[in-house]
């Protein structure tokens, strides 16, 4: 199972916004952030997504199905390619397990491994465990208003509230109507831009606006980054409780 996939998946989950948009007058940064977080929603979701990894050898597609319940429980199963099929990943709070069907083993990713970057990628296991609610981690301030993807946006500067946040600050472009984050820059403490996320397409699913195509990129590194496409999305689905247990990994 690919960590990239998971990381990006989780990262995208909080980018995915939902719920009716509220006409905003003059909102503070905090309020905007709250709405962004609310749009992300704590409800249940089932999503099938495909990730396109652009490597030096060409591109590769990986498809997964993810069940999310609330803020801190998710279960992912990989569907394709054949080699990855059946690999599962379970996140419960700040714990992360992985199951590989070929070995029939469940392995917890913990301790030092969490901070380890994965095979030279810039994303760590820890990134996957990040709190999806931005307001829990950052102060927000509106610094300007811009048009991005033909959508009027607020540009928010987020500064970390706590010390143990991986990215010291971020800059997000929030759609004024839909409260969808359309673009995000993540910065190191010294102010250097580390990573960017650009949403390429936003679609309406049920009555929510959902970014369904995004591009993630590590700007320090050469390369074309990784694309993420939502194939299907179901909100407020019935998800049985047993899915979020270690026993379900083996099933």
């Amino acid at each position, binding site marked *: *199972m*690919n*960590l*990239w996939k998971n990381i990006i998946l989780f990262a995208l989950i909080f980018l995915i916004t939902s719920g009716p948009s509220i006409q905003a007058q003059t909102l503070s940064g905090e309020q905007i952030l709250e709405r962004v977080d609310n749009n992300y929603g704590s409800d249940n979701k089932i999503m099938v997504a495909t990730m396109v*990894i652009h*490597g*030096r*050898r060409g591109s*590769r597609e*990986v498809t997964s199905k993810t069940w999310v319940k609330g803020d801190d429980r998710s279960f992912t199963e990989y569907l394709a390619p054949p*080699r*990855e099929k059946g*690999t599962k990943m379970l996140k419960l709070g700040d714990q992360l397990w*992985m199951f*590989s069907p*070929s*070995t*029939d*083993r*469940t*392995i*917890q990713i913990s301790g030092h*491994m969490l901070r380890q970057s*994965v*095979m*030279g*990628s810039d994303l760590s296991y820890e990134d996957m465990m990040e709190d999806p609610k931005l307001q829990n981690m950052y102060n927000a301030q509106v610094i300007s208003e811009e048009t991005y993807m033909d959508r009027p946006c607020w540009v928010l500067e987020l500064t970390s509230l706590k010390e143990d946040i991986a990215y010291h600050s971020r800059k997000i472009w929030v759609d004024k109507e839909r409260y969808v984050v359309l673009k995000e820059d993540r910065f190191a403490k010294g102010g250097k831009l580390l990573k960017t996320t650009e949403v390429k397409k936003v679609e309406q699913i049920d009555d929510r606006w959902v970014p369904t195509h995004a591009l993630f990129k590590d700007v320090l590194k050469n390369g074309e980054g990784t694309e993420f496409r939502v194939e299907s999305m179901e909100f407020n689905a019935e998800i049985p409780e047993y899915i979020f247990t270690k026993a379900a990994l083996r099933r």
Partner: protein
Amino acid sequence: MIKFLIKGVLRDRSRSLFPVLTVTAGVFLTVVGFSWINGIQSNWVEVTAKYNTGHLDVMTRAYAEESEQSPIELAYIGLDQLLNDLRQDFPELIWTPRIKFGGLLDIPDENGETKVQGPCMGMAVDLFSKQTPDINILNLQDSVIRGRLPEKPSEILITEEFAQRLGVSMGQTATLISSTMYGSMAITNFSVTGTVRFGVSAMDRSTIIADISDIQNALNMENASGEVLGFFRDNLYENEKAQEIAQHFNSKYSDQDDEFSPIMSTLIQKSGLEDILGMVNMYGGVIIFVFVVVMSIVLWNAGLMGSLRRYGEIGVRMAIGEDKGHLYRSLIIESLIIGFIGSVLGTIIGLGLSFYLQAKGINIAYMMKNSTLMISDTFRANVTSLSYYVGFIPGMLATFLGSVISGLGIYKRKTSQLMKELET
């Protein structure tokens, strides 16, 4: 005259035997000493060759650029064809694929939960194929401390130190958590069948050795390999030959515009050992030079002695009217004959021993405290083309010079005093 002199040399044992024996011994030592120093030079790079680069190393151009990080995502795909080509084009080398990888080794408890885990470095080598060179090259058979070598798929060796740290017993399952060549996480079960020791701390910490096919499966590297190493069959690195082969290969197979086309590089290009080899060569060169000079002096000395010994004989020959120039020339030719015979004999015997030392080597393990070291404790001689004629320098030149100088004494002697001398 030469015929006559050869007869003389052969028939008069006192005139021939000792000088020839001396020259033979001297030439013999020179040849062996030369080959030995040559061999020692190779020993300097042997560890690097075995564990890192081989004598020649084929990888993709992209891999080569970052090879110190062992980027398996840039591995060469199409290994079978490459191996075929290599074995066909360069049969003078043994070609064997290697994959270096990193990961975590995870030991489960009885419930399949992680009991203990630690980071590991992995080396995938050919363990199972019929004529695998790797078991020999890595001296695996003798390095096993506990257990045995892997015999079937999914069996691995790990270092003794690592096994102790993880508390692994033989036959136990160990799960390798690594990453495929496409970046996906790879989780594979292995059974630990034996432990080894390298004698190099950095490797002894946490190395695992697995069969190449197992790792290809585990890391999604079907028909792919990080590197293909080539070893000269006599296990001795020869830079010029290696460079020639690399050049030949690259002009035929490597494409500058395709970063995944293969490129071959030599041991010294790859390992940054150019300097050390240069130094060792220079050092060896000086040693050989000094040795040959000293040996020449010894044999020259022997030549001088020989002529002095024959003072009486020369006197008689002068007395019966032999021309001084003729006498001098005959002495010199005789010394050349002796030098030649001695040199040939010495070279033959010396080459014999050198070849033996090249094939067998001398294991100095008994001189060392740790006899299970995988680092090379076998020193070998190396017979090069120069080995065939290096002995002739002291062998012929020195005896020739010796008689040239001592023979000059002939011209100092006066015929009038000869009879007097002969009387004593």
